[in-house]
């Protein structure tokens, strides 16, 4: 899915969450969104998912203007926030059933795929447990199982590496992100761990107070953020330095 943001502004009251952000993503790319707290990472993901509407600017998918009520388009995008909201008071399986139906992914083969992912994520024995009795990491993994079963064209993951998942969940996430990119899926994830971004992503997007300060390949990021690099943007260099060694 080709994704294009052009001059996107977003403010919350007096604070600017996104300030004229423009970027373009091609299918099969894995993009890490980096930045300090309040840089606008989550807002960017929410704008991309349609959950948040930009004050100005456009978001286009495959040259199609994104609208919140464009259900066909929204079903091709899955946003996984750091605290996935689930329907309270029902089981994990019931939640997964709703998600599959909402994303029109409940066709033949869906249950088999779901069982497979639940097994890989070590969740199968918890399927009938009420969702509100699960830990944060388990809830995140169950939402991840839904994402993997649905396999949307655009994956939007908010802080997946700080989601409370156990090593097994993180391992599945890393391997599946690369596999998804190989299948032509686009993956955008936010993180504050520079090393993780370097290992997982093709491109990096560095935000600072809502401004897009860098949108380059991961190799360029290494050069710009390296100890012996030649930073042309001292803000980015300082930020990357912080992210590398907090």
């Amino acid at each position: 899915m080709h994704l294009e943001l052009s001059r996107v502004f977003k403010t919350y009251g007096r604070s600017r969450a996104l300030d004229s952000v423009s970027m373009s993503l091609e299918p099969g790319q894995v993009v890490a969104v980096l930045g300090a707290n309040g840089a606008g990472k989550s807002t960017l993901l929410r704008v991309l998912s349609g959950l948040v509407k930009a004050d100005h600017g456009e978001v286009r998918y495959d040259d199609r203007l994104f609208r919140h009520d464009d259900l066909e388009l929204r079903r091709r995008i899955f946003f996984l926030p750091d605290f996935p909201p689930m329907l309270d008071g029902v089981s994990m399986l019931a939640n997964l059933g709703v998600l599959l139906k909402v994303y029109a992914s409940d066709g033949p083969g869906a249950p088999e795929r779901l069982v497979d992912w639940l097994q890989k994520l070590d969740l199968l024995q918890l399927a009938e447990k009420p969702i509100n009795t699960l830990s944060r990491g388990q809830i995140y993994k169950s939402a991840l199982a839904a994402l993997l079963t649905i396999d949307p064209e655009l994956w939007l993951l908010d802080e997946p590496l700080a989601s409370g998942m156990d090593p097994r969940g993180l391992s599945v996430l890393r391997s599946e992100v690369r596999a998804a990119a190989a299948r032509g899926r686009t993956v955008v994830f936010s993180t504050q761990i520079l090393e993780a971004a370097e290992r997982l992503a093709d491109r990096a997007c560095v935000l600072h107070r809502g401004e897009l300060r860098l949108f380059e390949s991961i190799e360029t990021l290494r050069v710009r953020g390296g100890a012996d690099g030649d930073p042309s943007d001292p803000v980015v260099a300082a930020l990357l330095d912080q992210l590398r060694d907090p």
Partner: protein
Amino acid sequence: MTHLLQPGTAFLQAARRRITALLGAYPRRPWIVRAVSRVTGSWVILALLFLGFRFSHWMVAEKSPGIRNAGLAFLLQLLILAFSGHLSGARNHRHHAACSWWPFPEEAVVDLLLRQALVRGIGFACAGAVGFAATASVLSVGSRPLGWVLQGAVIGLWVVPLGVLFDGLNIRWRWVSRYQAAIFFSGMAYFLVLRRFPPLGLWLDQHGDAVALAMPSGWLILPWADWLEGRASIRWGYLAPMVLALLTLPLAWRQLRAAGRFRERTLFLLWGEIPENAPQGFVDQIHTSLAEAQAAHLPGPTANADAILSRAFLVSPLADPPGWVQRQVWRWWTPEQRIAAECMVRGWNRRGLADGIGWASMACAWGALLMSKRSEESQWFAGAVVSGMIAIITLVPWLSAFSQVGVIRMFPIRLQAVAALRWKDTAVRCLVALPVLVLGGTVAAGINGDPLEVGALIGFQVALTPVVLSPLATLYGLLNPVRLRGTSGAFLKVVVAVVCLINILSVLLQFLPLLGLITGTLCLGLNAVILHCGNRWFDACRIDTDIPASTMP
């Protein structure tokens, strides 16, 4: 599972002391005054107070002791119902579950919560009692003022123990609560209607006490009335069941605590929120019990895999409902609305339909009073009550249902589907209540000597009103969980209050047939505009809110 907490008895006592310290000199402060001031801040208690004033006036003016006693019994029953529901709400306190994060054992937390509920309930009852007592004393200057004052106060105060008792019954027999509103409201609503019918009014004049006796609250009212009349009576014997009820109160209270404790205990255990200074034996027992409970009640991985592969989890729990009405509703929903319903509607609630009939019957009663030829004042009052009541029953059910909006907006579901779902839900409720309302309006018109078609039309309009108000309720429900940019919650409430007022006035005018039709049509248009703008408004709100971490334990 009670044995779990036994090793920590000393620890529990210490925790209770900490709670007491936290609450400070709570019992020594004028807590009733504070509680009264707090609850009178809510519009619910103000409405109740207003009802109390009006009922007191009606009771004092009523010359027939039989009708007065029956009416007082009804009033008391109404208050008990209200308080009972209030306490039930406290018991099912999801928002209070956060208290489990406190480093207190859950038993103490339950005690704290119930105590808060009781204090609020007492304040609630006191406010009503003050209303009755003040009105009664004003209205009966020179004629047994003390008796009326006392009667008003007693009515208000008796609400508390009886409310607790009813709540205990609800805990023991859940089905009671399902039909409680319908039973109480509809039964006595018919009484209020039928008392206007001359032969029946005459019969009630003679046998109203028997009607009062049919209600538990009447067992208190009748001896009290005799005492006021200065009559020696064997009806003091009616107090015997009340005494028995009082004796069972500790049992009911214990059940209430046990029910709340179980909920808190579950959360406490599963969330693993064990205080650091808890004895090790206590902690070990909790973990062992939790593991055993999981092993005993949760199916294994193989069973879960089989369940998933059977695709049973993809079938909506709302599909193929047992009742005919529910099946029609299910067919009426679009596929998108069915998924939205799965998120928002937790099972088919027969109580909703039963309540609809009960409320409709109550509206019939007030419609009859509205058309009575007693005075212009009573007509306006009755109209206001009917309108307010309809507005309340239209608005309130959405507030809880829309708590899931935070989740739904994450999904690719259109807001229009959510709004349409609610509108259809309202329409069904109104359709179910329509025969009762039309029949009630017709009967009431016949009793008052008005043209029958006018009564039927009024009944139809009353049924139509919630449907008309539905878009407004939807809008409010959508706006409720979100926050507007640059505006406060108070601003939003004022906006909603103004719109409600406009709607209530238009509903009131509906009772004048021609003007009512015109204003009703205008109201429908206004709400359609509000809904249209509201969805856009909601879009504007939506973009500025954070995603609630609703499932974060």
